């Protein structure tokens, strides 16, 4: 189980490995995973005569290295705290989060494009499209992101 270990205005840091581009829920916040960071494995300090199997049998814990995931918070008025459990958001949670008076709203879109990789933004849009299948605006936004990617490749 992953848990929130740090919170700032726009980001959550989570103890554990999550998939980049995945939309997750922490507290009542939705967030998208933007990066995964692993610490340098400690066995480098001890490596020498022993092979990997011997290290596993005699000094097993040094093979583990701590991994954290950084998540960009989607939206402004949510609350997540240190220690909150983090899990992949289900369709209903994403639907509820993005609907206001029956209309689709993506208030974080501009900020997300400014702050995250285009691949991450595209992944969020694809997930929304899988839930809001008839929303043509999502196709337009996806095309816009593709254009940005192509433009960046020139």
């Amino acid at each position, binding site marked *: 189980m992953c848990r929130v*270990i*740090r919170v700032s205005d726009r980001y959550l840091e989570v103890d554990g490995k999550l998939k980049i581009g995945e939309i997750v829920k922490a507290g009542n916040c939705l967030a998208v995973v933007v990066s995964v960071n692993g610490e340098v494995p*400690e066995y480098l*300090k*001890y490596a*020498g*005569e*022993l092979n990997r199997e*011997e290290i*596993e*049998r*005699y*000094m*097993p*814990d*040094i093979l583990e290295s701590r991994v954290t995931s950084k998540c960009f918070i989607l939206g402004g008025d949510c609350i997540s*705290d*240190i*220690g909150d459990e983090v899990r992949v958001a289900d369709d209903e949670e994403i639907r509820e989060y993005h609907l206001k008076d029956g209309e689709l709203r993506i208030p974080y879109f501009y900020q997300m494009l400014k702050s995250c990789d285009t691949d991450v933004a595209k992944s969020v849009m694809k997930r929304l499209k899988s839930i809001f299948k008839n929303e043509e605006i999502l196709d337009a936004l996806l095309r816009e992101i593709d254009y940005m990617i192509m433009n960046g490749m020139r």
Partner: protein
Amino acid sequence: MCGLAGIELKAYGILIFPVLKFEVMSGEFESRLSSPDGVAKFRNFVKEFESELMEKKNVCSDILSTIKLKKLKVCDGRRRWAIRVLKGISAVGVDGSQIQPLREFGIPAGAVQVAAFKVEHGSGNWDVSYMSRIVRLEENVDATRYALEMDVLRRNADGRSYLFYDGSFTPTFVREMAREIRSRYEKAAMDTVKKCSETETPLFGYTDRSYSRDIAKAHGVNIYDSFILSEMDVMSYTEPFCSGEICYCYVRFSPSLPSRVEFPEWMRRKFDQFIRVLCAECMLGSTFSYPYVLERAHSYAAVSERERRLIVEAVGGISLSFKWVSKLG
């Protein structure tokens, strides 16, 4: 080594200087350090210091010649030898860390956190468990940490595992403390030694850099034991010295100064066998002079600056008068 000169003097200066400084300190002088007078005084100071060291060296050699030393034979490379010795042995390292009351953030409490790292060598099974306690502003954080560390050691005294503690069961600094705190330390240590003796659980108190003077006092000199023993060969250890239920010896498994090891009296019976296990744990460590299980326990117990920040953010402060808080602490 006892006769330290040049660069070695620098490296061991921390240990030697506190003992010698009052003996060689000369008076002030009214000129710049770089003036001819200043430089001459500096030169004389260093010469006096060196001659004192030479005198001490002779004393050290005399004392060292009266102590029985043994040497471990390590073949096939140190780590490979170590895993042969440790095969099937279960070892537990216990170490703690602490947060002093965070007065600057208005948090009127400190905390201690103790980690017990357990590994079954050969099978690859391992576990780390924690015991923590919040400490009130008026409590002694160090004494609470020590008591909790001893408590965790007792909980692991299963008659099978080798227990390693980073510190002493007869800490010298408590002699200066108030009787109530001193007896808290002593009781915690004695309870642990007794429990390990009753269950025949091997227990080591390992002090990497010891400032004890027990051997020195027995010979009527005022020098650190580790300084006296600094000419011991690498991979050698002294005979055990006992006082009541606790014994100690010194081991030297790397070129740095010897380390002090304390253990319950019953372990004398198989002393050499226990020292072999201790040495093997050190050979697995990253520096070859400190037990691997203690290195790991230390890394799990530590409260990083980041965690400290997280705690401050999560707990939040209460508005306290600094004047009032300072009267409590």
